[in-house]
């Protein structure tokens, strides 16, 4: 018999569970789920620590430089640490923990890594401009029925479909 724990979950069931996780975030903490915000906190903390005078003179870092609280101790940092732990737990139970560069057989590991860095950088820039990423601006925004959430999701996925053709060799 096939081991069910190693299979991916039914997507609708996973969606309902994730919906309850989003509700829990709002209910217990008054926050939406997020991803990119934690990376922003890391960058802000680094710059404020390394170059406090520069930080205080910029519009982007000003609030973090003047805050009495450590910019690293945020709700999203703890949440993203949790994502890391949750991913390890699920991966361990399903036997999916394995160090590897995952890529289509048509490209090399090197190509995959280069484009992963480019994609990450674009997400870093886009999430700062768009006030959050797929989870923060999109998913959590839609959960509270905010115009911003729907706009963000439409832009991310619309752009993905628009540009998909140009990068098809990376995936298919």
């Amino acid at each position, binding site marked *: 018999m096939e081991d069910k724990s190693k299979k*991916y979950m039914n*997507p609708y069931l*996973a*969606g*309902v569970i*994730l*919906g*309850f996780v989003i*509700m*829990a975030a*709002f*209910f217990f903490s008054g926050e939406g*789920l*997020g*991803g*990119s915000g934690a*990376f922003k906190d*890391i960058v802000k903390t680094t710059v404020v620590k390394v170059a406090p005078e520069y930080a205080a003179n910029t519009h*982007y870092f000003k609030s973090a430089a003047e805050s009495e609280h450590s910019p690293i101790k945020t709700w999203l940092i703890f*949440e*993203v640490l*949790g*994502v*890391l732990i949750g*991913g390890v737990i*699920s991966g361990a139970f399903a036997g*999916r923990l394995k*160090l*590897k560069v*995952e*890529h289509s057989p048509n490209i090399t590991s090197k190509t995959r890594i280069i484009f*992963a*860095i*480019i*994609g*990450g950088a*674009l*997400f*870093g*820039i886009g*999430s*700062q*401009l*768009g*006030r959050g*990423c797929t*989870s923060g*601006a999109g998913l959590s925004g*839609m*959960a*509270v029925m*905010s115009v*911003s959430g729907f*706009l*963000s999701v439409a*832009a991310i996925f*619309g752009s*993905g479909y628009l540009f998909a053709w*140009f990068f098809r060799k990376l*995936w298919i």
Partner: protein
Amino acid sequence: MAPIFEQGSEWNFLAALFIGIAFGWVLERAGFSTSRKLAGVFYGYDFVVIKVFFTSAITAAIGLLFLNFFGIFDFESVWMPTTYTWPTLVGGIIMGLGFVTGGFCPGTSVCAAATGKLDALAFMGGIVLGIFFYSFTYEPIWETLRKSGKLGKVKIGELIGVQEGVAVLLFILFGLFSFWLVNKIKKTYNIKDVEY
């Protein structure tokens, strides 16, 4: 009355950790720890992303609507994004480009890195580089755009002129339509969900 924990309290950080664990667990269980499966949504070979994404947003929207209706939950006292049209659109377009080149979004990259995907780790490094670039070029390049198109904390129901419940109902119908559509596409072209 929700929210239960005070902002900035130790309890709230602990809640964040546990909520994050649940988030990471369900992402991994759903198959979001592999870029090849995630990218499938853009190339028509795997639609799990659409199903999980819309099911979860709709579930949460219905749940929060009811909690609000029963007076347990107040939208005024929780995080609610202010809508800025242009930066959200341009930011989203940049992120979409990031999705088809990198194969992850920030949340899923953390989950994938947790299972040992080195490409996800590279993606995370890229996010940090991107934010450094953005922050150092914020004033000359991004600041004006980021503050443009402000609409306020507007909800989709207010924008199209229907009640909150009707807006959620329309969202449900939209979700059901998208599920029907992707299942139709899958059936027509005989596509099986992939297991990477």
